[in-house]
């Protein structure tokens, strides 16, 4: 404790540049008027004077002022620190001596406004940096983080030797370097600080570096160079537009404003005399050249202000040079900052690419989940199920309904998953029995009939649940995101969907390759007649396969519902992409579906990255790409070859 105290003392002495200590009471008295009518705009010097007074009472006084515990005794106008006790105030003089008590009505308590309080907080930071409580010190660092100022540099530096908390110490050291970059007065030290970070990708570093590269646009006569640290010259037509260059001249007061068509029209309208303007008959004024003639005539007559013509504009633009000049005067510092930023940009690009990859992966797993059921029905059985999207929707609504009954989100999710599977499995089996079974040899009609089912199911969902979106809330442990750094992060829900996709892939492979059902399914797919003669009931297998595909759609529905809102159009939004996934991947192979989902997911994210403002266009381009892709590989990425593919 003693060591800490000594360190604080030393720091204070250091911070105030030595010995000159002016009592705070005196400072308060000299600035009485400013303090009584304090305003954010004028109070700065007073606070600074207090903070740098060197008086060890400065912190207490500032703290009291900020907490509205500073007052003026009405009787003698003395500043006092006040503490409430019952109905009265206990008074302390600024120098720390007790000053008795007083009635509340005898004291005029100062009430600094929020702006002033913020300034006081800022000034207090240097004291808090050495506060005995860790939380106070951390809070002080937070304030520096948010509002970095030149004045914080010295106290921060001074507080480091006395900081024994390793976490805070390294934070302080980092902040010191950041503050040095921004406010240091020694160029070499600043450059050293910049270089010490390497390719650190922290937002705080970029926040410190970017202001160094702020530029101002200035104009000089052609051939001249502006004073200061020049960033670059701008050539009109390249780097700066002619119009922008001229606007700069106008702003600098070097040229008259240009005549806009609207101003010209107004000027002409104001000067109609006897059906003529400047000697030009009014009906002729539909021609822009006639308008120019009329305006020139008015100009000569002195009726309208001079305005620059196109030729004058061009000449003026050509006669000047345009520059970007750094606000930071030191060229070495700006160079170092630029180099550091470009290094950081490279690294950030790399991380963004990684982040993009993560997003693509998560989108791919969504498509995979949506498509895996289709891969079974369309890919393996050759049956196209347009109602697949509605099965997804059904699963999502099942999840929603379960949540209405079971308020615990984790439990409801655990109940909803098997229930959604059961519901859509039943729906799938019913549809297979009632509709699809009769159409196995007629794929196009299956498409239409299942589409009829899809229309009906969608409308029924609308009738039951309404058209507004229903929430399917994820449990708390799925909220939030896994944050790697400022650039790379991925929400837990996306990870969960990815894991779910993986689980289904393994499950699918297991069922197809390791179970009796899978064996029979493959047999029926390849040769139904032969399979039937081996004692396999193709009807039963088809029914089960269809149910399985639909059941998976139901579970995918829950996943998608957690991710997006549940509406009756949920499935429809994914159906085309799902089919694309299956078709692009190659029919009849689960790895094809996986490849298709990966391709489509990556592609869509990639296009969105190239054109982030427009996700609709991204989808358009993606579909166009797929249409072209089918040209190159009509049977998909992973294609069956030869006679087995069937013509």
């Amino acid at each position, binding site marked *: 404790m003693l060591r800490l105290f000594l360190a604080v003392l030393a720091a204070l002495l250091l911070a105030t540049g030595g010995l000159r200590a002016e009592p705070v009471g005196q400072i308060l008295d000299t600035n009485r008027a400013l303090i009584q009518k304090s305003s954010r705009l004028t109070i700065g010097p007073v606070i600074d004077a207090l903070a740098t007074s060197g008086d060890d009472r400065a912190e207490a006084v500032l703290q009291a002022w900020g907490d509205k515990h500073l007052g003026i005794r009405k009787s003698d106008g003395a500043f006092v620190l006040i503490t409430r006790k019952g109905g009265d105030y206990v008074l302390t003089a600024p120098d720390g001596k007790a000053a008795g008590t007083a009635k509340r009505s005898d004291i005029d308590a100062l009430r600094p406004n929020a702006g002033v309080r913020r300034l006081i907080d800022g000034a207090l930071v240097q004291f808090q940096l050495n506060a005995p409580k860790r939380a106070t010190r951390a809070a002080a660092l937070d304030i520096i983080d948010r509002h970095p100022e030149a004045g914080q540099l010295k106290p921060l530096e001074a507080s480091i030797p006395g900081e024994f908390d390793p976490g805070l110490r390294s934070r302080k050291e980092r902040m010191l370097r950041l503050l040095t970059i921004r406010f240091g007065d020694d160029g070499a030290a600043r450059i050293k600080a910049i270089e010490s970070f390497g390719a650190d990708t922290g937002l705080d570093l970029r926040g410190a570096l970017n202001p160094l590269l702020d530029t101002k646009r200035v104009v000089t006569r052609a051939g001249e160079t502006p004073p200061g640290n020049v960033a670059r010259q701008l050539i009109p037509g390249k780097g700066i537009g002619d119009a922008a260059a001229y606007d700069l001249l106008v702003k600098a007061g070097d040229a008259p404003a240009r005549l806009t068509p609207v101003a010209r029209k107004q000027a002409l309208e104001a000067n109609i005399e006897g059906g003529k303007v400047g000697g030009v008959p009014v009906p002729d004024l539909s021609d822009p050249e006639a308008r120019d003639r009329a305006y020139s005539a008015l100009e000569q007559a002195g009726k309208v202000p001079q305005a620059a013509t196109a030729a004058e504009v061009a000449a003026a633009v050509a006669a000047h040079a345009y520059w970007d000049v750094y606000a930071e005067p030191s060229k070495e510092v700006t160079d170092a900052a630029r180099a550091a930023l470009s290094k950081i940009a490279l690294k950030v690009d790399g991380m963004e690419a990684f982040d993009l990859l993560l997003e693509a992966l998560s989108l791919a797993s969504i498509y995979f989940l949506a498509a895996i059921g289709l891969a079974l029905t369309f890919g393996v059985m050759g049956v196209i199920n347009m109602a697949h999207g509605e099965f997804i929707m059904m699963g999502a609504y099942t999840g929603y309904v379960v949540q209405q009954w079971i308020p615990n989100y984790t439990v409801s999710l655990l109940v909803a998953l098997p229930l959604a599977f059961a519901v859509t499995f039943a729906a799938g089996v019913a549809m297979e029995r009632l509709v699809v079974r009769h159409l196995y040899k007629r794929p196009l009609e299956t498409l239409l009939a299942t589409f009829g089912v899809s229309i009906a199911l969608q409308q029924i969902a609308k009738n039951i649940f309404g058209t507004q979106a229903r929430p399917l809330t994820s449990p708390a442990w799925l909220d939030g995101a896994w944050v790697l750094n400022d650039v790379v992060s991925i929400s837990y829900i996306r990870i969960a969907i990815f894991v779910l996709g993986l689980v289904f892939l393994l499950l699918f492979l297991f069922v197809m390759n390791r179970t009796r059902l899978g064996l029979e399914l493959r047999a029926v797919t390849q040769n139904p007649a032969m399979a039937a003669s081996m004692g396999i009931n193709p009807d039963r297998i088809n029914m089960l396969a269809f149910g399985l595909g639909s059941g998976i759609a139901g579970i995918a529905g829950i996943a998608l519902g957690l991710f997006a809102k549940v509406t009756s159009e949920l499935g429809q939004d994914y159906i085309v992409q799902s089919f694309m996934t299956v078709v692009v991947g190659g029919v009849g192979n689960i790895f094809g579906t996986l490849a298709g989902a990966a391709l489509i997911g990556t592609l869509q994210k990639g296009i969105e990255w190239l054109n982030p403002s427009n996700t609709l266009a991204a989808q358009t381009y993606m579909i166009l790409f797929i249409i072209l892709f089918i040209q190159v590989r009509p049977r998909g990425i992973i294609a*069956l*070859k*030869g*006679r*087995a593919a069937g*013509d």
Partner: protein
Amino acid sequence: MSSLLEVSGVSVSFDGFRAINNLSFSIGPAELRAVIGPNGAGKTTFMDIVTGKTRPDAGRVLFGEKSISLLKRSEAEIARIGVGRKFQRPTVFEDQSVADNLMMALKSARGPFRVLFWRPGPADHEKVEALAAEVGLADQLARKSGELSHGQKQWLEIGMLLAQEPRLLLVDEPAAGMTLAEREHTTALLVQLAKTRAVVVVEHDMEFVRRLNCKVTVLHEGSVLAEGSLDHVTADPQVIEVYLGR
């Protein structure tokens, strides 16, 4: 004698299975040839390659005096060049009348615009009637071909093939499902046809092949095992081993 069709060194494999392995085959402009071989010998794949349905991995397929390569051409182009194919099972357009089927097969312009403005003239009707008479369907012209019996469909398809006037005819098991009398009629017709064009018959039925009385090519595992007269190949011990003997 120059050959009409020359297949040399053709190989094709499906997923690693070599269906055709370095197959060479040639036939003259007016020759009848029977191709025999056990199941899976590559007979159908061979025909697929010649007609453009399957693209071989290696080899050449040349046709006609100008030695046009058939490899890069579509099925339709190959058909227009003069290769006709009769399928094992009769494939006629059952929803359309016998006359329509024959009219469609009749040699004439094949492009969409030409077809759109094409209207049959009296000569075309005569040709169709003549063809129908040749295959014994003269009184069935107005019927939908779906109503015909299996044998009649075979004949209709042969009629359509004749209407195409091909220079090379590939015939896949023509005698299947025919009565004895019809077989004789078919044999006579094929022999007759081979006088003016090349005819390749793929057949299982040895009796039928014997009746054709022509050179025989035996396929086995995608390549030619033996070639010569029927008596010659049936005497070949290898042929006996893989095909006839067991």
